[in-house]
């Protein structure tokens, strides 16, 4: 790298957004910039935002794909409210994202894609690069397509292939502008196109050209540097929620010694779990792409009956289809994990957009009285621990467990301190022992005689002589597990199944409150809103309000001390990416007039939105 003449400014945190056509490779550009940023040791959070269509008509607003990244030397909890730099590959990308750019922010636009046809496709009446509408921003218009074609004129590649590498020019330029290392992207290209040398060399060349172009063109007044964040000592990697969740399940199979069976049907945004787990056959992981969501759940339950860690994952519509099987798992009291990577509903909804609107379905969405534990992950990296915990609790209490993630967590990335496998909670497995199980006077195994502490029933997979038994969806006799229509027995079984789930709360750690421990407002959240709530609470406290933040790991059962925590604050504010579902659960349980901040737009909260709601709540509005 040659000595630079462009001055370098130190900044504490930056938000950049790569936006272009869904065929422009923006997700790839964003994820490579993320990797470079992680290796530059910044804290970071990402928000990939893309259409459901694989290749929506080129140049249209509904084909725009974006990747937002917030990084800093300070702790980063959100993908950023306002964008400092927007890289817009065409007018549609600019049009869809301009409102996210802060006034005075920078815009790099590919002027080659701002021709009349492109403007027509984006339904822009005039050219924003010329009509003065961007006067409040620092605009750098580049001939990205032309520069790429010139760089590759001797490459022997087709124009189509050449144009496909222009995102590497943008990446190179962005890396230069933010003084990121270029080596990780180079290494990645070498690996990705190892067998396509021409493409590999072309991309490497364009990446370098982009990196050096910033210096040559002298269009930029300054470069920016973001110092490493002060993260806890340890070994880190960048991780996305879906990756972390899959690793958490592998940790569960390794630590428990139980085989992992994963039955799944492809669905956005959960499919990546299947992709990831199908690679881990060396961990004995068996993945099964089922014919539908129902078969996926049924296969996981069949495996659970066989003594495996039975796991299935899906998103909202799939959870609806799995409902009957989850009910059977609850009735047969077999351990099973159901992952719901939530997306915007209802019905097919907005598959690539995030939401938290399956909470009530997870807690209540089955016929009959069918309580099961429900927990949620709060950050991409936390998906690891949440998955491990879901599996551990399912086995310990012989119950299906629903784990809620969402599209934002699944696709979003953050630096993750890699845990030491030895530091994970012990994962106890107690299979029924034919010599010590409860038996009736005739010596028959009683598969519904419970553990006195956990109320779990013995898990007795086939293959063990003397433990032969039959399970099913018909109501069970409280001891033998035989079919029973006895009224009192049904009451007892309904009660004991509820008590078993409620009792899980007895092993929870005290509910942690960040910020003030008592005061004006408690912000109560769950799931992926963690980072944004934390950032908003920090800001509100710096302005003198007494605000606490409690974030629920478990939505069912609630922690035993939740009521006590709620009582220490004058007001309770619950921000959710739904129409107020946790609010209903809290009101139902505690009869408290909690306040709802409901956002249902398919995108995460902005910090400012929660901050404003905290102020309003504190002032009694």
């Amino acid at each position, binding site marked *: 790298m040659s000595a630079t003449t462009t001055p370098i400014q130190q900044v504490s945190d930056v938000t950049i957004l790569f936006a272009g056509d869904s065929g422009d490779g923006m997700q790839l550009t964003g994820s490579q910039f993320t990797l470079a940023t992680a290796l530059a040791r910044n804290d970071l959070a990402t928000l990939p935002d893309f259409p459901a269509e694989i290749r929506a008509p080129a140049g249209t607003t509904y084909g725009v794909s974006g990747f937002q990244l917030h990084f800093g030397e300070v702790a980063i909890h959100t993908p950023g409210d306002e964008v400092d730099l927007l890289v817009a590959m065409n007018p549609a990308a600019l049009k869809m994202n301009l409102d996210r750019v802060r006034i005075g922010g920078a815009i790099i636009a590919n002027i080659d894609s701002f021709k009349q046809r492109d403007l027509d496709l984006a339904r822009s009446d005039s050219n924003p690069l010329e009509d003065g509408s961007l006067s409040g921003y620092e605009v750098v218009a580049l001939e990205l397509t032309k520069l790429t074609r010139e760089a590759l004129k001797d490459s022997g590649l087709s124009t189509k292939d050449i144009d496909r590498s222009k995102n590497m020019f943008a990446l190179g330029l962005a890396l230069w502008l933010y003084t990121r290392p270029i080596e990780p992207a180079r290494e990645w290209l070498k690996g990705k196109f190892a067998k396509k040398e021409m493409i590999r060399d072309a991309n490497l060349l364009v990446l370098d050209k982009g990196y050096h172009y910033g210096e040559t063109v002298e269009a930029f007044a300054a470069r920016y540097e973001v110092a490493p964040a002060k993260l806890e000592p340890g070994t880190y990697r960048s991780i996305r929620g879906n990756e972390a969740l899959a690793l958490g399940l592998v940790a569960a199979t390794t630590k428990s010694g139980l085989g992992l069976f994963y039955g799944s049907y492809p669905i956005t945004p959960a499919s990546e779990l299947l992709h990831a787990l199908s690679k881990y056959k060396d961990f004995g992981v068996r993945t099964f792409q089922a014919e539908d969501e129902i078969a996926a759940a049924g296969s996981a*339950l069949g495996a659970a009956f066989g003594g495996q860690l039975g796991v299935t994952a899906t998103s909202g519509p799939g959870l609806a289809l799995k409902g009957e099987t989850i009910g059977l798992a609850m009735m047969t009291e077999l351990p099973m994990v159901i992952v719901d990577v939530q997306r915007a509903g209802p019905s097919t909804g907005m598959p690539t957009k995030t939401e938290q609107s399956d909470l009530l379905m997870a807690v209540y969405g089955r016929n009959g009285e069918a309580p099961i534990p429900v927990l949620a992950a709060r950050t991409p990296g936390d998906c690891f621990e949440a998955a491990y915990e879901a599996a551990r609790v399912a086995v310990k209490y012989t119950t299906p467990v629903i784990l809620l993630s969402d599209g934002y967590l699944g696709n979003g990335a953050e630096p993750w301190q890699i845990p030491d496998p030895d530091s994970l909670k012990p994962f106890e497995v107690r299979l029924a022992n034919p010599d010590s199980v409860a038996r009736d006077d005739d010596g028959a195994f009683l598969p519904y005689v419970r553990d006195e502490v956990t109320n779990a029933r013995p898990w007795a997979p086939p293959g063990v002589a003397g433990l032969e038994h039959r399970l099913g969806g018909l109501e069970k006799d409280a001891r033998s597990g035989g079919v029973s229509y006895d009224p009192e027995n049904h009451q007892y079984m309904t009660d004991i199944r509820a008590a078993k789930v409620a009792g899980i709360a007895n092993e929870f750690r005290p509910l942690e409150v960040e910020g003030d421990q008592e005061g004006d407002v408690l912000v109560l959240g769950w799931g992926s809103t963690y980072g944004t709530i934390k950032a908003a609470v920090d800001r509100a406290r710096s302005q003198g309000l007494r605000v606490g933040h409690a974030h629920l790991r478990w939505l069912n059962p609630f922690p035993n001390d939740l009521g006590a925590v709620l009582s220490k604050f004058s007001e309770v504010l619950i921000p959710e990416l739904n129409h107020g579902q946790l609010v209903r659960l809290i009101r139902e349980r505690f009869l408290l007039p909690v306040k709802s901040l409901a956002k249902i737009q398919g995108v995460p909260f902005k910090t400012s939105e929660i901050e404003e709601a905290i102020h309003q709540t504190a002032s009694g509005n």
Partner: protein
Amino acid sequence: MSDNNKPKGVKPAGLPKKAAGPKGAKPARPPAKLGSRPAAPPKARIVPTPSGDGDSTALPVLTKKDFDSGADVRWCPGCGDYAILAAVQRVLPELTEKKEDVVFISGIGCSSRFPYYMNTYGVHSIHGRAPTLATGLKASRPELDVWVITGDGDSLSIGAGHFTHVLRRNLNVQIILFNNQIYGLTKGQYSPTSEVGKVTSSTPYGSLDHPFNPLGLALGADATFLARTLDRDPKHMQAILRRSHAHQGTGLVEVYQNCNIFNDGAFFTYTERDSKALNCVFLEHGEPLVYDEGKKGLKLDGLKLRSIDLTNGSSTSDCLVHDEKDRTLAQIYTQQLMWNDDLPRPFGVIYTEDRPTYDSLLQAQVDEVTSKKGKGDLNALLHAANTWVIE
């Protein structure tokens, strides 16, 4: 929030600590009077080998009774299901020495109560979904001996998707399809195998649906073992169950089963003495297709099966010879011997082929990847990315 609203105490709307119901009441004790319980699992009896040479070597031998759970069988008196239960209990001791490895998985319907009556492991699952549980179980525990019990509504209506998929995957399980051409447990509606025009509680003016051809459907899904038998022919049924169990892959056995309450006599053409001979052709591999007590045979005339008179000039050498490995023949049988009342219905093993099973392929893939990569190391996997260290 006013003080009045403040939850006092640590556990506000207290769910109880242990074993208490939603209203905070302590759950009632388990009722003193429990329903009829399954009897004790009879231990494998030790009996002398009948070798007659005075050697007293004792081997555990399972009997039919060992497979009886002792639960009261609740099918209607006279139901064809009893015969199927008896046949399965009778053949199992020949097929296995390890009762604990046997698992019966059923869906919902009259037939699906079956697992409760077997003193083995079992799951009475969800309507139509038995193949899905069987798939997860067999794919993760290939050493188990898994049987799927289903009916015509269970496997061909609500579970038709899973039925075809388990067949194409060729999971190494047995499927016994109790076909009674009616919905029994829901009280007599027409089923996906009921004949057109059937008058039932849901079709007072006659049903309009063209019925499924179960074995034709299975063949279309590339099933590797197809057989048909009759509830009223226990010997034949036992022989077919043995063949199905011996088959490596999905052993599909369709049983014509009489529902004497809602569809009595649906198969009497094939089961009763006066009509059976003329309407059934019992297939044997390598044997000519002869029926009506040797008086008639089936001849292949081009691509058409034709009945020939063996008492008047033609002989068995003119008859088609059954080859259970011949897929084309299987297609001809399942199409031409299904809707044509002038020709007999085939029973026995209609088709079988060798094809790797899903469970063995999955096991082989796991083994292969593991032997190539070595057993996975969790710590290494967690670090398998670009990492950096913060001091």
